[in-house]
Structures are given as structure tokens and as C-alpha cells.
């Protein structure tokens, strides 16, 4: 009987080792351990054993059962693993096939740049002011120290609606309107973004373009503050290594006035095509608010000072994205817009 048990175990070992599928494994479980299984059949013959043999054989039989069950468990786990990995292998996909199209759009590069400029100044405590694009001569010129027939009006060839109404040539009228509204309170700390218009049309000029102007008025604003503020702006906009250079210039509404150049980011100021081999790129105009402008808006120019600056969004976008023709910005070719 003991031989029989041992041979059942050997049989089972061999059969279980061979099988590779779950059904067969179940059949084998029945064949060896089931109610009519070979082990059960052997155990039924236990009655014919002598009382001395019985415990020994019984123990052996239990050991054989335990061993078979053990092997069954192991095989079951193995086969399940194999089945699963076969399934996973079958489920393989070509991950290089293109993804399902997700429709994305694009902000216009001018908007993107304008928002970037706005965010820099919002972070420095400026608020955003807006005003009409169609303005009176008073707000666009006179209140900015540009009386009629002033030669500096030539710098801004205007579109007229009537002798007294025109398309604003800069967003400076917003500054005047803001000062009039705020006076005598302090400080004024605003930027004025928006569309402006001048009679110019070529690769670097558009009859409609965008400006962001800034104005700060307070008790003790200095030219150094203007320089420092624009240095911060230049670093945030064009990178921390950017240097600025201030060149004296002339605007009727500021004095002293300056044009600001930044070091060319393409060549690091060494000189290249982009900066016309000067190492510098002109990006904005600025200055200390002219005392007459302060007075006209109701501030006492002995008590308060201020600075103002203005930049063309197109110019900055063209520098930032290396665009060489301004007309592209208003052509709205979707293949162009999709690049931003």
C-alpha cells in the first residue's frame, strides 16, 4: 500500500509538471484528490490494514495529499501567470501610432506677448487702464504738451475723423484720463495696453499696432526709479542676463526723455544680423513726466514727479519670436498662428 501511495505521488508529480492549462490542472486535481480519485481509492482500502500499519500508512497518505495539493497550488499560480502574460502579449498595441487628435487653438502672438508684459507689471503693483481708441485732439496731443503745429506731431502721422477727433496715435491719452480721474490722490501706478494707429505701412510698421504704456506718479519718483523699473522689466521679459542702455531722446510729454536699448539676446551684445551689428536693440521710449503734463492734469509738479514709458507690442513680439515682417502679425495665416 505504501508503494501504491508513493507511486501515486510520483505519477501526480509527473502529470502536474507536464500540464500547462487550467482545465487539465482541474482534471488532475479530480483524478488524484477527487471523491473517486486515486488517492481516495487507496485510502478506502485502509480498512484492510493492520492496526499497526494504519497510522503509518495514514500519515503517509496525508503527506502525499498535502504534497499533491502543494504542487497543484504552485502549478496553478504558474499557469495563471503564464496565461496573464500571454494575454498581455496579445494586447500589445503599436504605441507609435498617432494619438487621437486633440483640437488645440492658439492665442495670437501679440496677445500672448501683451499678457506677458501685463503680468510683469501686475506683479509690480500696476493696474491696467483702458480708454477709447478714437480720441479727441486734446487727449491725444494737447494735454500731452503737443499743441497744434508742434513739429513733434510729425513723429506721429495721424488718421483723422474730424479736425478734433482722431484715432489715437499712442495709449498716452489713457494716462491723461487716469491722472484727471485720480488727482489729487497718489500714487498712480498703471499700464495702458491697447491698439494705436499711425499712417505707416511697411515691413516694420503697420497702420494699426499695439502699445503698452506705463505711468507712475508719486511724491518722490526719480529718473533712477524709471531706469531700475525698466531694467527689471527687461530681465523678466528677455532673460536675467539682459542689460539696458538709455539714450537721451525727445518726447514732448516727458523730460528728460530716453530711448531704451536692450543687449541683443541673439549675439549677447556682440553684434549680429538681428541687432544690425550694434549689439543693441531699441525696445521702448520713456522719460520723466513733463511738468506741464502734470500741471495740465491737475497735479502740482513741485510736489509730485513721475515717469512714463511706452513700448510697441509688435516690436517685442518680433524680437521674441524672430519675426522679420510685421505684416505677418495681421495676415492671420493659420499656419503662422499655429506656431504660437
Amino acid at each position, binding site marked *: 500500500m505504501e508503494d501504491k501511495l508513493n507511486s501515486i505521488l510520483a505519477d501526480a508529480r509527473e502529470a502536474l509538471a507536464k500540464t500547462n492549462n487550467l482545465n487539465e490542472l482541474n482534471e488532475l486535481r479530480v483524478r488524484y484528490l477527487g471523491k473517486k480519485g486515486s488517492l481516495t481509492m487507496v485510502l478506502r482500502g485502509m480498512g484492510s490494514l493492520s492496526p499497526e500499519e494504519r497510522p503509518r500508512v495514514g500519515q503517509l497518505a496525508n503527506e502525499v495529499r498535502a504534497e499533491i495539493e502543494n504542487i497543484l497550488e504552485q502549478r496553478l499560480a504558474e499557469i495563471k501567470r503564464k496565461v496573464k502574460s500571454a494575454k498581455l502579449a496579445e494586447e500589445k498595441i503599436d504605441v507609435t*501610432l*498617432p*494619438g*487621437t*487628435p486633440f*483640437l*488645440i*487653438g*492658439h*492665442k*495670437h502672438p*501679440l*496677445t500672448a506677448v501683451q499678457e506677458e508684459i*501685463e503680468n510683469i*507689471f*501686475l506683479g*509690480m*503693483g*500696476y*493696474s*491696467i487702464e483702458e480708454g*477709447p*481708441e*478714437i480720441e*479727441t485732439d486734446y487727449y491725444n496731443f494737447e494735454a500731452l504738451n503737443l499743441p497744434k503745429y508742434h*513739429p513733434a506731431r510729425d513723429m506721429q502721422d495721424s*488718421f*483723422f*475723423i474730424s479736425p478734433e*477727433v482722431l484715432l489715437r496715435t499712442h495709449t498716452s491719452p489713457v494716462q491723461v484720463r487716469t491722472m484727471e480721474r485720480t488727482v489729487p490722490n*497718489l500714487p498712480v*501706478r498703471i499700464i495702458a495696453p491697447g491698439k494705436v494707429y499711425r499712417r505707416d*505701412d511697411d515691413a516694420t510698421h503697420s*497702420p494699426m499696432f499695439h502699445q503698452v504704456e506705463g505711468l*507712475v506718479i508719486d*511724491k*518722490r519718483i*526719480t*529718473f*533712477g*526709479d524709471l*531706469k*531700475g*523699473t525698466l531694467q527689471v522689466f527687461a530681465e523678466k521679459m528677455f532673460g536675467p542676463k539682459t542689460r539696458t542702455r*538709455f*539714450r*537721451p531722446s*525727445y518726447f514732448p510729454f516727458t*523730460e*528728460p*526723455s530716453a*530711448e531704451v536699448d536692450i543687449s541683443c539676446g541673439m549675439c549677447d551684445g556682440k553684434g549680429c544680423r538681428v541687432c544690425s551689428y550694434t549689439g543693441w536693440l531699441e525696445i521702448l521710449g520713456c522719460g520723466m513726466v513733463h*511738468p506741464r503734463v502734470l500741471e495740465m492734469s491737475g497735479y502740482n509738479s513741485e510736489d509730485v*514727479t513721475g515717469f512714463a514709458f511706452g513700448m510697441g507690442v509688435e516690436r517685442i513680439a518680433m524680437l521674441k519670436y524672430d519675426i522679420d515682417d510685421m505684416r505677418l*502679425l*495681421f495676415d*492671420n*495665416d*493659420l499656419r503662422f*498662428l499655429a506656431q504660437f
Partner: protein
Amino acid sequence: MRVSYKWLKEYVQIDVPPRELAERLTLAGVAVEAIEEPGKDISNVYTGKILKIEQHPNADKLVVCRVTTGGDEELQIVTGATNVREGHIIPVAVVGARLTGGLTIKKAKLRGVESRGMLCSGQELGLDPDTMPEDQAHGIMILPADTPLGVDVKPLIGLDDAILELELTPNRGDCMSMVGVAREVAAIFNKPFKMPETDVAPTVDAAGNNVKVDIEDPALCRRYVARLLKNVKIGASPAWMQERLRAAGVRPINNVVDVTNYVMMELGQPLHAFDYNKLKDGHIIVRRAADDEAMLTLDKSKRELSSDMLVITDPGGPVAVAGVMGGYDSEVTPETKAILLESAYFDPVSIRRTSRDLGLRSESSARFEKGIDLTGCRRAADRAARLLVDMGAAEVVDLVVDNYPRPWIEKTILLRPQRVYHILDLQIPQPEIADLLIRLQFQVKEDEKGLLVTVPGFRPDISLEIDLIEEVARLYGFNCVPNTLPVGSVTQGARNYSQELALKIRNFLATGGFSEVITYTFVNPRVFDLLGLAPDSQLRKTVALKNPMSEDQSVMRTLLYPGLLDVLQRNAKRQVKDAAVFELGRVYHPREGETLPLEVTTLAAAVTGSTPGGWNRSPVTMDFYYLKGVLDALLVQVGVNDVSYVPVTGAPGFHPGRTAAVICGETEIGIIGDLHPDVQEAYDLSRPVTIFEVNFDKLAGVSGNLRRYKSLPRFPGVERDLAVVIRNDIPCADIINTICRAASALLQEVRLFDVYRGKQVEKGRQSLAFSLKFQAADRTLTDDEVNKQIEKITGALEREYAAVLRS
């Protein structure tokens, strides 16, 4: 303004090369835009003399010249030029010479005759033909007869010079002169400045000569100096003067005209020379023109004058438009024997208006309109006389009239050093401030309050303390001012509600597949015809530009979407036929009785074609319902809850059966619809287009960012599908309304999931399938409760629309 580096050295010592000079000037506020070095690429061109000219044996249009460059050797050179004669001294490019444009001279045979070099024109030497004497502009350059032979031609004709091109700001009229720039250079480098010689000794007695100047309008002519010169010999001006004029971009004409131009370039004072014998009685009258007056100017054009314009007249009529251009009839000619030199001061605004009204700008008007040195008129007249005498071109009569009714008023300005510190944040000691101003030729006196600064006559732009502070700053160097940041009370930097909303909408649409466009706000009024607007449509009432760039950009838009149609059209022509675009911008409506028009911020979007398909996904047509879905989502995003779409027929430009007004609560905020097929055709678009255009300000009014949490249901809901067959002209919105009204509050959601028209349904009817969701907050609903709701709903639909339940 073109400034010759060589010429500039006559007035101030310059120790730096042109490039560095340009840099220093620029950083002091006199911007140098470019540096021109005309002779940079030219070499081996020498002076030569033509010994003999013979006809070319094989060519009618060529001649063979024998030329000496001073040595023993004679060069045989073939030329096609017709302005050379034997004995002429000319520039000769010898074999191996380099000329402009990289041209190299080699030995050559021209129609069988050997040629060893080339006779050069000014143009071949890099000179502008417009600055060459007329007879040489298109021929060989002819040098003065006393020119030595065999010397390098470059220094003789200014090719060893550098020209600084200044881009002057309108306030610095004083720098429209060599001495003005020289003063700046002297101040920057702290060098002495030398004024040119103006002493002149009359050699002709005044007796028997008559010069009289009457100024009728002294406000427009503050000063008029007239100087008489006789025994005039008209001829060419000396080579050195021609060279300088050429450097300044002025064509040499004759000695008298050249001198007036030279002095204008040198001192900034425009001069005019009249042929004295053509002036009646030597009598100059400066007055406003009459409205019906006209005159012939130097350029032989007839100019219609008006009473706004100042003219120079003699008793017979106008002889010059003051400060703008001389008259043809009193012009200096080769026969002129006596000249009257005018050196005057005319009012800048008047000159500016006159020159604008006549469409005539000259070197002279450009200077007058910026304001010249009122104190310098006499000096300029003397300088011109001196030059003419030195050249042997005229003799000076002991007769000068200096009519000076409105003299220069000396300005003295108090400059407080603490104000300099306050504005510039720069601690410059008072003596240093004084020194900087003295270098700029201001007179400075110390006072207990600060510095008393007297402004020289050539700086009419300086009248306020701040002007002086700017002078100090620019000479000290802007870049020497330390960078600081403003100190003061803290301000909150934030976008306001509508700015924030605009940002949100842009972000939403851009991430939702729309590309933002920016189109011109001025449009062609023809757009309204393309849209089929009625002739009396309000939208045709535009804000029109008086001086547009073109008809295409002549009126301000009253609608946003036509700009989008232009964009779609342009892209379609470039094979981009699927498009989803939007623009957020203003439209403009004139307002009765208001100076300024109404500007309405508007949002428009347009779609055409389909979304991109893929290998596993078919493209979706971007049609009315696509765009409506976008708008719905957008409105939810900005907090609009109560939206309805009301069919609209007859909206201009829109399809009559596919257009709706967008209504939020009680407010109509815009329109959505398919483009009318006629308009689609007018825009040459091959596929249908859907558009919405929404008033952004109204949208902002109905939007909000107030959101309240609603507790989530704790009991499961029950979903039931309901399909009804119903007349197809009943708006779905009405049916949904009926369903909602019929059911109790248990009905939480109605979703249309199928619309069917076709064989299974009789004509004129359609099947609509709804998914209805019922839910209660406090219990799980029983079938019974839900069935009762469904019965009420079907009952109402049957009653109101004769709807038939579809099993």
C-alpha cells in the same frame, strides 16, 4: 542731417575715430543713425590729364584717350563718355583699381583697341549723382584745372571722409548745422569750439544803391537782414566747397547758390539770394499773401497762395514764399551782376503750415519750422559775403539793412541743484552742474537759490528748469544714473473684472481649438454690400477716416465677423480650409450729439470645415451645433446659467432658417448662425460657415463668478428613455419646456440623445428621443413614482403637440 567728419574738424578738435564719435553723440542725445564711408572700397584711382582724344576706329560711340597720370608713361584708355575734352583733369582708375560694387579694373580690349584703365564718373566712385553738378551727373567727373597729376583722388573729392547721418529729434533744430553739431562735440569732449570767420570789409560805397526792408507782420518775421553784393561773377564754386556740399547731400549749382547753401549747412541759417536787378527799387516787403495771389517758384511751379502764408515781395508782387522757396523771376542766373542776400527769421508755426499747405518741404523750411537762432541772422549774412569775397565772386557794398522788430528776449532760468537731485537721483555738486552747462555754452551765475542760467540764442528749445536738468543729465550720461525702484505705498496690481473675463474667454477658446486672430479695425465700406445690408441699415453708419491709407481701410468696423470671413477667405486660398477662429476687439458706432463714437468690445468666432480626423476617429463637421456647443460651454464657464436661443430670420448676413439670438436671462447678448449662402458666395468660400458675435460688455454684465455648492445626491436616480414622434417644426426647446413643466421637481435632467427623420416616421414629423433622469434627495424612488411622472409627461406632449409615444 549729414555731417562730414572732415568738415566738422574745422570747428572743433576731434581725437576719436568716426565710429566712437558717433557712439558718444548718440549717448548724448544726438542720435547717429548710420555712418557712411563712401571711399571705403575704392583704391588706385589717380588724377590724370587727357592729352588727346581720337575717334575709335571700329566704334562710333567710343573714343580713344591718351592720358597721363604725371609720369612719363601715357595710358591709352577707351571711353564712351561724351563730356570729356582734351586738357580735362579726371579721375583715372588704373589697372588693378577697385571701384564701388567690387568692380576691379583689368587690361582690356574694347572693339579691338587696348584700354588700360578707366575714366571714372562720380557714381563709379560712390558719389550720389544728385550731388554732382548737372553736367557731370551722368558723365565723367571733371576736376579743377589746377589739380596736381598722379595723386590719389580720394582725399580730393572727399572719399577719405566719413559721413555721420543724424536722426535729429524735433527739439534740436540747432543741430541741423555743422556748428551746432560741433558745439555738441566740444561739450562732450570738453574741447574748445571755433566759430567760422565772419569779418567782412565793404569795398563798394553805399551811395547810389537802394535797399529797403518793410516788415508788415513782425509776428511772422521777427528779423530780416538784407545785404547787397555787386560785381558778381557767377561761376563754379571751389572744389573744397563742392566737396563739402556733396558730403552734406547738396548739389553744387553755382558759386552764389552754393554759398547760400553752404552757410545754411554751416550755421543753420537759411539764406536766399535775389538777383538785385530784378527786384523793383531794391525794396523788400514782408507780408501775408492775399488769398487770390499766386506765384511761380524756383521749381517752375505755380503756387496758389493764401493769407495764412508769408511772402517776400517787392512793390511788383511776390518774389519768394518766405522761408520755403524763392521765386523763379528773381532767381540768380549766369547773367546776375548784383545780389541781395536775405537772412531772416520766420515764425516756425507759420512756415510749417505754409510748407504743409503747399506740399513743399525744403532744407530751408525744415530749419525755420524748428526755430533758428534769431541772434545769428546778421552773422550768417556776413559769413556768406565773406565767402563770396574770398572766392573773388563778388564785392561787398557798404549797405546792410537789419530790420529787427522783435528782438530775442534773453531767458534766464533758475536751476536749483536740489531739483537736479530730486529728479535724477544724482548727487552732482553745484560747480559740476555749472561746468556741464558752461560746456554747452550756457552762461551761468551762482545765486543763493542755485544757478542762474542764461540761454544762448541757438537753443530756443530751452525755457524751463526741467529743460536744463535734461541738459545736465544727457551730458553727465544717463547710464551713470544708478538704477533704483520706486518706494511708496503698496498698490494692488490686478486685472479688473472685465479684463479677467477677457483673459478667461481667450484662454477657454484657445484651449478649445480656436485660433485667435487680430484684424484691422478699419475696413472697406464695400463689406456692407457683401453682407447684403439694407441701404438704410444702422450698421452702415460708420466712423469714417478723413485720410485713410486706402479705400480698403477707410471706415471703422461696425461688426467684427466680416474680419473673420476675410481671414477664412485668405486661408482657404492657401489651402487651409478647416478653421476655427475668434477675435476679441472693438466695433465703433457714431453717436448723435457726442464728440466720440461708442466703442463696443465684441467677441466673434467663426468655424468652417471639420475638426481633424485621425486613423481611429472620424472628423467632426464644425457646423451650427458644433459652434453652439462651444458657446454653451463658454457661457457656463463664465457663469451664465440661463441661456436661450430664439430663432431669428432676416439678420443681415445670416441664413434665415439657421440663426438664433443668444439671450441670457432677459438680455440679448448676441447672435449665432450659419452664414447666408449668398454671403458665403460673395466671400468665395466653398464651405458653409457658422458664426457667433456677442457683445462682450453685455456678456460681462450677465456673467459672474459666484458659485454655490449643491449637495450631492445620496439616493440613486432613475433613468428612463422616452421617444416621441412629433411635428418637426416644433422647436426642441419648447418640447423640453413642456416636459419640465409637466414633471415635478423629481425630474433632474432632460437630455436629447437622438433625432430621427426618415422612413420609419411619416413626412413632416420626427422622432425625438430623450433620456430623463429622476431623483429625490431623501429617498430612493419607486417605479410607481417614476411611472406617474412619465405618464404626466407623455400626457402633456400628446395634448400640446399631438405627440405619439414611440415604443
